[in-house]
Each structure stands twice: as C-alpha cells, then as structure tokens.
C-alpha cells in the first residue's frame, strides 16, 4: 500500500503531498524534510529505493523534481518506480510537455489527476487513456 506520495524540488520545496494514512501535522513536515534529505543527494547510479523508517521510499527524479512514493516493505519496488513514470506520462500528456512550473500553478489539478490514478493508497486505474478522459470531463466544467 502507498503511504504517501511527495513531489519536491531540489531545494526541498513541496510541490505536492498526498497522504493515504493519517499523520499529525508536525509529523508531516518532518516526513517531508526527511524524505527530501534521503533522496536529494543520492548518487544517480544507486538504487531508486531507500529505506525510510519501517517502510521504503521509491523515488525518481525528473528534471529538478523528485517524485517519491512511500510503500510497504513487501511491495514490488520496480512496479512502483514505473507507476511514478506512468504518472509523469499522464501529467505530460495533460499539460503538454509538463514542467515544474505547470505543477506549481496547477497543483490543484495535479491533485485531481492523482485522485484518478491512486485512491485509498492503491493504484485504482492504470490506463492513461481512461484517466485523461476523466480529466477531460472535469475540465469541461471550468
């Protein structure tokens, strides 16, 4: 199960944070700080998996942004690594050549996309087409 997903830039500024388990406010910031520290200076040749407390963080860097997923120890690391990539592909499709700035200005939309992709800590939909279509329906409202 996914515990949380974080998007942070190199400076550690949170661009998106979604938690699928309840955490105290103070704990949230600590988690974000710790995850950033864990991933930001890791050698790119190293694995994309880091132990984090009793779970593990699967992260992947795109340009200046780090996408980090915290999952259970028993989960399939590579599959979650690819799910990050799938998410980025969806974002890229939605925003057309997505860049960090898109995510900054439209973070609320990113949350909506995420809600179509992951729900209750599990991948609920893995078809890019289905998600894009759903977002199209939501966009029509604007």
């Amino acid at each position, binding site marked *: 199960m996914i515990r949380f997903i974080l998007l942070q830039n*190199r400076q550690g500024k949170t661009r998106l944070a979604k938690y699928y388990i309840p*955490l105290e406010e103070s704990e949230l910031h600590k988690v974000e700080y710790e995850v950033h520290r*864990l991933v*930001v200076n890791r050698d*790119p040749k190293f694995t994309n998996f880091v132990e984090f407390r009793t779970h593990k963080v699967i992260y992947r860097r795109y340009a200046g942004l780090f996408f980090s997923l915290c999952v259970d120890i028993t989960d399939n690391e590579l599959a979650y690594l690819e799910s990050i990539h799938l998410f980025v592909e969806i974002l890229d499709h939605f925003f057309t*050549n997505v860049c960090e700035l898109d995510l900054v200005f439209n973070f609320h939309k990113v949350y909506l996309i995420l809600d179509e992709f992951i729900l209750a800590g599990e991948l*609920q939909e893995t078809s890019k087409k289905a998600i894009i279509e759903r977002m199209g329906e939501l966009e029509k409202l604007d």
Partner: protein
Amino acid sequence: MGSQGGFGQSKEFLDLIKSIGESRSKAEEDRIVLREVETLKVRLNDPNTPKYKLKEYIIRLLYVEMLGHDASFGYIHAVKMTHDENLLLKRTGYLAVTLFLNEDHDLIILIVNTIQKDLKSDNFLVVCAALNAVCRLINEETIPAVLPQVVDLLGHQKEAVRKKAVMALHRFSQKAPGSVSHLVSNFRKKLCDNDPGVMGAALCPLFDLINADADKYKDLVVSFVNILKQVAERRLPKSYDYHQMPAPFIQIKLLKILSLLGTGDKKASEQMYTIVGDIMRKCDSTSNIGNAILYESICCVSSLHPNPKLLEAAADAIAKFLKSDSHNLKYLGIDALTRLIKINPEIAEQHQLAVIDCLEDPDDTLKRKTFDLLYKMTNSSNVEVIVDRMIEYMISINDSHYKTEIASRCVELAEQFAPNNQWFIQTMNKVFEHAADLVNAKVAHNLMKLIAEGFGEDDDTADSQLRSSAVESYLRIMGEPKLPSAFLQVICWVLGEYGIADGKYSASYIIGKLCDVAEAHPDDDTVKAYAVTGIMKIYSFEIASGKPVDLLPECQSLIEEMLASHSTDLQQRAYELQSIFTLDAQAAKKIMPMDSTCDDIEIDKNLSFLDVYVQQAIENGAQPYIPESERLGISSVSDFRSHDEHEPSTHALRFEAYELPKPSLPHNIPPVLASSTELVPVEPSYVIDILHPTSAPSASDAGSSELKLRLDGVQKKWGRPTYSSPAPSSSSTDLVKVQNETPRPDSTGSSKPKTRDTSYDSRKQQNEIPPEKQKLAASLFGGSSKSEGRHPPSQKNTKTQTHTSDKSRSSKASAPDTAVKPSQPPPDLLDLGEPSIASSVPSVDPFKQFEGLFDFTQETTPPASTGGVDGASKDSDFTSLFADMSLSAQSHIDPNPESNGLGGSKVEPSSPQLNKGPNLKEALEKDALVRQVGVTPSGQNPNLFKDLLG
C-alpha cells in the same frame, strides 16, 4: 485540454507564487505567506466575496498549507464549499477537505451529511468527488452512515463510479474488517466487471482478504488464472498497455494474489504453473516494467509448490538481474535470490561474486539487501565470516533503527550457529560494545547464562577456561570510555561471579575495578547496583574461604555514598554489603555459595508454608482471598507476551479493545535478595523493575508512550491495587494506533527459514578476481563442505537450543519492539540520512544543476553527440532510466523509439529543444505566456521550465 489556455488563475495568485519563488530566504518567504494568510482571512470571512473568487481563495489556502503554514482558520470554509450546489465549487471543496482534514477531525461530522446526499446525486462527477472524500475521511464510526449508498454504487452505470466504490469498500475493510465482511461476494462479482479498471480495482480488496485467509478463496484460483491468461494474451484494451507490456500493473497484482493462494497448496500451484511460465517467457527484460513482472513472477514461483522448470527459469532470471549494471536490478536479483534459496540453497553458489560485489557496494540500500540474503543463508560453516561482516557494518552506521536490527540479527545468528563459546563471547562483546543499548535486554541475560552454564555438565575445565577468558576480556574492555549500560551490567555480573574463580586475580584487584565502574557511572543506578552486588559476592567468597578480609577504602566510600543514595535499592544493597562483614565463614557460604547460579531453587509458588497462618486468620473471621481475575470477572487473560507477539505483525489499525492484562506475577514476587543462588534472569529483572518501573510495559506499548499516558493495564500507584480498564474504543486510542502505523517495524524481517544446505562446493569459476574476494566468496559459499570435519557446535548448541527455546521465541517476538524503542523520542532526523549528505543544496552551481536536468549524462559522452541515436548503449546503461523516454503515443517523444526503452537516450544538453519535436511551438508559447505573467525562473530553481520528460 490541459493548460494551453494559460494557468487560469488570477494575477494576484500568480504574483504570490512568483514572489515566493523569488524569495531569497525562508524568513522572506514566511513574511509573504503570513501576509497572504491575513488577506485570505479577511476575504474568506467577507460575506460579499463572490463565489467564484472563493474557489481560488481555497486553492490559495491549500498552497499556503503546502508551504508548511497553518491554514486551519479556513478549514470551515472548505467544508462549507462542499455544500455548494455548483459542481466546480463542490469539487474544489471536496479536494480541499481531503487535503486539510484527517478522518478524526471534528469537522468531519459536518461533511458526512453532504457526502450522503452527494452519493445519491444524478451527476456522476458529484458522486466521484464524494467517493474520493469517502476514501479519505470516513472513519470507523461513520462507515455505517455511507455504507449502503457505497454498496449501491457498485452497480452504477459509470465505470469510474464503480471503481471508486470498490476502492472505498476496500478502505472500509482495512479500517473495520467486520464492516464489509458480508460484502465479499460483491468483490468476487466485480472480478467479472466489463471494465478492466473496475476488475483491477477489485483485486485490491481481494488481495487483502486472501492475505488474511487464503483458504476461503481457493475456488477463485481458476478465475485469477483465467484473467491473468487473458491479460497476458493482450485481450484487454490497448490503453492498459504500458511500455508494450499488457496491463502490467494488473499482472503484478494477480501474481501477488496467485502466490498467496498457491503457498503450501500443491493442487492450486499446479493450476498456475503454465500461466506463470508463460508470463516469465513473455516478459520484455529490457524494460523496467518487464523486469518488474519478471521479479514478481520469481516471487510467485518461490512461494508456489516447487516446480523444477519454473525454478530453473527463475534462476536464469535472477542471474540476469545480478549481472546487470543497474543497481535496481541487482537489488531485485538479491531479493529474489533470498526468496529462492529457501527452496534451492545451491543457487546462491553460482552468484557468489555478484553477491560480494553487492555487499561491498557503496549503496546502502543494496548493501542491506545483501545482508538480508546473507542472514538467510548463514550456516555453521560461514557464520563467522557473515557475523564479522555484519558487525563491521553495524559499527559503521549511525541509523539506530537499522543498527538495532542488524545487532539483533548478529545475536540471533551467533546464538544459533556459534562454532564455539569463545567465539560466541567475543562476538557478543563486540555487539554489546557498540549496540548494547539497542539489543533486547534478554540477550544480556542469555550471555550471562551461557557463561554460567558453560559447555555442559561433564567438561569443567572448558567451562572455567571460558569464564577465565570472559573475565580477562572484560577486564581489558572495561577501561574503555562510553560503554553501554547493559554491557557494563554484564561485565559487573561476570566479574562478581567469576572474577576470582581461577585465582589469577586477587579479590582486591577485582573489587577495585568494580568500584571504578560504580564511580565512573554516578548516574547509572543499575550499573551501580550490579557493581555493588559484584563486590558483595567477592567479599563473601573471601569470607567463606576463611581468608582475612579488609574493607578497601574506595569500597568504604562507595558504601557510604550509597547509604545516602536516593535509590532505596542501592541503599539496601549497601546495607547488605555492610552486614556481610559481620558474618562468619559458614553463614557467608550459605548466603553466597560459589558458582551456583545454575542451581535450581525450589520455589513454593503456592506459599503453602503460610497455609496454617491463613487458616488461623480465617477462623478468626478474616475475609478469604479472591483471586483478582475472579474479582474483575475476566475469563481468559493473555499475558504480556501475547501482546508482543501479535502487535507488531499487524500494520493496520486495531479496533477491538485491548484485553485486560494479567498482573505479571514474576515481576511482583520480590526475589530473595540478590544472592547468587537465584535463577539468573530474575536478578536483573529485579533491578530493572525497581529502578525503571516503566521499562517493562514499554516493550509492548513503547510506541504509544511518547504520545500520551496509557493507563490501562498499569497498576495504580495509589489506592486500591486494581488496574484501570481500557476504554472500549475511544478515538484517542485509535489515534495512538494510527501513530504507530508508520513507525512500526515490519515483522517479516525476523522470520527465518531453517532450511540450510551443506552441499556447496567451492569452485573458483572466474579468473581475474582479486584473491581476497575469492577468499571471502569461498568462506561464504564454499565452506560447508568442510563442515563435516569441523567440530560442530554440538553439545553447546543443543544446550543453547534448549535453554534458548524460550529465549529465541521471545527475542524474535520482541525484536520489533526493541526496534521501536530507540525511536522514542521520535526518530532522529539525522539518523535516516546518509552521513555523507552535506547541506550543500543552496551552494550548488546553477550550471551544474542545469546539467542535472539531463539526468546523469555521463561525462564521457561527448557534448556534441546526439545521444538518442546511440543504439549501442542500449542495454548497457540502466542508470539512465531516470531519463528514459516515454514510449507513449505522444507527439513529442524521441524520434528513435528503439533507444527509448532502456535509456540509450542520452539527452543532448546543449539543445534541449530538439526533444520538443513538433511541440516546439507550444513550448515557446508557454514560455512567452510565463514571461507575460511576469514569472521568471528564480536563481534558485532554473529547472522550473524544464520538461519533466525531456
């Protein structure tokens, strides 16, 4: 679609983001945010604010909170927004509440009603928004309020709604398994849903249910196999393909389910062999996702009833993983190997050099995974090498969490496989020296016990040799500064018991040493208590042997100090020590018999010698004693240990009330004062109990103690000696559990396969391997053939086995507990980071950062080469998987599809626009738009405009 039309926010919002992006310091940023908070407060509270504006304010509020500031003043406005009729506002309201609120927030009660209404809405978008909120905000108490509607929605005509309804029920079953137990048939039905997305979603709850009890779902094996077959045959819509693999995420979930169903079930396994074999054959091992499926297949094969053909295929796949250059694949290879050696221990042998490479890798994640493997393949012939390596690593790390784990593994392996006692004691000394306070206290007792009991009954010389060497090593070690308290306790005990046993050291020498220990640790009452008792033993041995005894001056001053101690325990020990001197030899011998720690003492637990007295009292009209359990009307009570065992194994919330713990009897019986004739473990626990009254319970609820006092199960300090009963299911205990959820260590780590094989043979397979590596490999993998000739840890081991029968159990059970313990106070920030992380982020050269965009373009790549064309590097470089291009059908993807998969696609830094392909124009427009709104990339983050997938 998307944001081509602009960002859709007001100038004000864009300015806010811009100014925050450009702020030079945290203080400046805080000022900006605080100003924004003030603005929002005024505007949100202004009744005249138009609704469409409100929506943006709520989004700005989200932004403020994401920056780490408190936005709680606006939560109520977000809640109000969910009530709005306008779908856009409602959706924004739901989005905001799911991000702002936790399921136990007070405002939830105001939303439940709206959710109920919205779940019945005709507009499926409203229903979806409400379902998203249900997944996040509905707690155990509110489940019944929405459950009927959510179940109805399983039959909704829109697949998006059905899917979300399945996920909501999945959430419910996690939170309160009882609440949906009658709905299992619905999940089964959803497997046959027309929409693959709904089917995929239904796998999540089914996985959990099968994980809990596989036997009930054996009939589904055929269905799962069929679905998997259809997926593998590409019968699902093309849109589920990802990097040319058909619905890989669904495949992986199905493989996970199959491995649960096939575990230990030959018949079920046989139904799966064909499809699993097919999948392994079809996997595209050049893409990440293909390897993810391959890895999951190996996991599945390793838990099914063994099938030679599949095992062979799995071994081949593992070999490929391990030979890969990618750390990710190596990591998976090591993990898969760990699973497979349970079935076929020989398989590790051919990979010995790869394993050793991983062990020496600077990447901690990989290294630790390799230690997991070594831990599982330890046997009596390689234990020395492996444990030495582990200790070496243990010393080098700072992460107390992992240190604890690896220390307890060392202890476990040493206890199980130690070739001789000498080695065992040395190993334990090393572990204790560096991590004594992290390992279970039980381990210290086991060590003392081993020293006391020695090899066995018939080998006294070996025993005394062992003790002498222990004493000698301790006398050497004890001079070192900063020894952990638990280790000092062991040292004091051993010195007291055996310091003068072999006559090598004089009593006054040992006593002097013990006094030094007590003096050097003025704040550690436990150590002092051990030291005084040690001194007491030595004096009484001396008195018993009839030698003239004189009180050393430093000992005298120690006694005086302790007589005035705040600790009553220390006082009492000091008084006892004083009175020892007044005894004659005969009495001293009785009180402290030499070397009698292993003697059994008969304890009359029923206190039958008091029967007469009780009888008299009753005859005189006293009330007869009613046992506590009867008084409170409890039928069955589990003791503390059962808590220890099952608690860490569940990650999920536990909703049922805690059982009333039985007052643990052994703790309450005041043992006969620290005489050496006691059972060994009692004496230390006596000390610990007295000095740290909280330490015993903290093993079972260490996680919660930091948050609030939990008084259930704790004897009341004042008043009647009853136990306060736990609240039935107060939300506060829920909160506590929830807190525990994350930091809970996983219990799977401590499960241990007992399958060992002893038939490796050491073959040197490759040349040009450094000799030391070969040696290490041989000792790790090839040593077993010698093991016949070697003195097996025969007697001692069986002995340890018998007396560890309970210790190993408890050490296993409590390993996760100790793992939690040090993390209170909450995990040290510094612990989790690698020590080498320097805080150099701000000082990074912006150009360097810019290069970073292109993800690890290696310096060897000539700057002018158009990376993507280089097909030769196709399979050699997994490291660029960060940069690998999407294979999606997007217009701007790399023109060389063949170089995409595994990242031959080195992106050319100096001409990023090449990659924009046909979308160059759009990108330019976007940049122009950005400039128009006045946002410029700040010096801090020049990446803002960079295509993430570029």
